């Protein structure tokens, strides 16, 4: 499945300062990383939970604790699926589709 993922607000520093990544994820991959999600693997679907563990393994180069906490993102990170807050699409259970755009952005405090 082709997806575009983007990092912002400083999270790009965790992956060699590259902000935009065009990736190709096999829906089964997430499962292989150990986060078994019976329903989504039955339908051969990729959920955001699967994607997070895939990104952590394949994209994040350093300090993964700055990206994730438990099986979700760390506090202070907004996740946007096609420019909408992931809370609106089911958070970790959001089912991703071909060509979806997922943004991970750290909230800024500077001024």
């Amino acid at each position, binding site marked *: 499945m082709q997806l575009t993922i983007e990092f912002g607000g400083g999270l790009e520093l965790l992956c060699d300062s590259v902000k935009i990544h065009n990736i190709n994820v096999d829906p089964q991959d997430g499962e292989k990383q150990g986060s078994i999600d019976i329903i989504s693997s039955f339908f051969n679907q990729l959920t955001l939970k699967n994607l997070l563990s895939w990104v952590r393994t394949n994209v994040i180069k350093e300090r993964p604790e700055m990206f994730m906490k438990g099986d979700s993102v*760390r*506090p202070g990170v907004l996740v946007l699926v096609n420019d909408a807050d992931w*809370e609106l699409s089911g958070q970790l259970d959001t089912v991703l589709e071909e060509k979806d755009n997922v943004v991970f952005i750290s909230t800024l405090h*500077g*001024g």
Partner: protein
Amino acid sequence: MDSNSVEATRIRQEIDSLKSKKLNIEQQISSLEAQLHQLELNSNTASSLSNGNLGNSNGLSPDMIYRYSRHLLLPSFGVQGQANLLKSSVLVIGAGGLGSPALLYLAACGVGRIGIVDHDIVELNNLQRQIIHTEAYIGKSKVESAADACRSINSSTQIVEHKEAFRTSNALEIVSKYDVVVDATDNAPSRYMINDCCVVLGKPLVSGAALGLEGQLTVYNYNGGPCYRCLFPTPPPTNACQRCADSGVLGVVPGVIGCLQALEAIKVASLVGEPLSGRMLLLDAVSGRFRNVKLRGRSLQCEACGDHAVLTRQTFLDFDYEKFTQTPLSPGPLKLNLLSVDARISSTEYSEKVTEGETHVLVDVRPAHHYKIVSLPNSINIPLSTLEDRLPEISASLEKEAKKDSLDSGSSASLFVICRRGNDSQRAVELLHKLGFSSAKDIIGGLESWAHNVDPKFPTY
């Protein structure tokens, strides 16, 4: 001292003295202008009252009609929008990179009353982005500087100076006097505190942030929309909060976001347009892209604005925002103390060792782009993040120095570590001790201490 430098010092002193006289005169002029304007306003009201009407029924004086004519000509804004604005009040918390342009526009556009909160003073390294302040105000209060600038743009707007740090103890009293709040602060605890205060008092909050080459903007607590805590119920880990003082910021980026904050505040105050509530604008200045994203609605579970929220005036007063976010409200530089006394030397002691010609290696552990700004002679740059991989370079340098000064085979060169403020150098020395360089010492207070105590001409940043 040669005669040239004596002359230069004299000229500098004369310039400073003239500048302060000029500032004084400018202040007298603007105060007189404000008085004159007030007199004119009063006599206008008096004469129009005697005429029985204003000449028009919209309540705008001829001066105001002329000043705001470009607003009045806008069909979607018009007299009603301007009248609403003139009746409104906006509080801007923070007169820095975001607050500067926000205040300039809010003063210019005719908000009736503007409050400014800040406890800082203007410094030279603020001027790159905090465009409301000028060189003449270096060393003076930011609130005073910003207020003078606002008054010189629009003497008919009432400017209220709050020269104090924004704390739970004064927050409710200050915020309750305004209709709209603009968060132009620079740290996590202030953002939570301002949000909660606005929720308690039911005030819309225009929130902006900028760092590096990115900016973010949204309106919280407006018309049933989400608040800051709906989005971020848990504060981020402290090491995820970068500061402009450490990470840098391109001045115009907070400038853009501050202008947009003024725009949102104007929309809310004038009841014109669709404020950015339940949405967030993300600016990526490098690629020149804005992204307008849809946010979640108000969270029913939110601890500030949710259906079972326990936030009241009293719980707000008692809440410890510094503890909650593990971050101080006025972020002074972090002062670590990781090492024992014998693993540290002061910058003056180090300077003595250099003068005595002690055989040594000085490792500067700042990032490479910091090292390029300024560095001590004969130091080698090995950033902390790469230290473990580059130990052989340190060993080689130590051997080279020892050989150069033909030390006995038994003794070796000393190893000193320096950074910007003396935190990373301690982390580095701790690591070096673990990895076998047991004699490594850090220079207390880093290059800032060097500039302060040894060489006042050494640049700080």
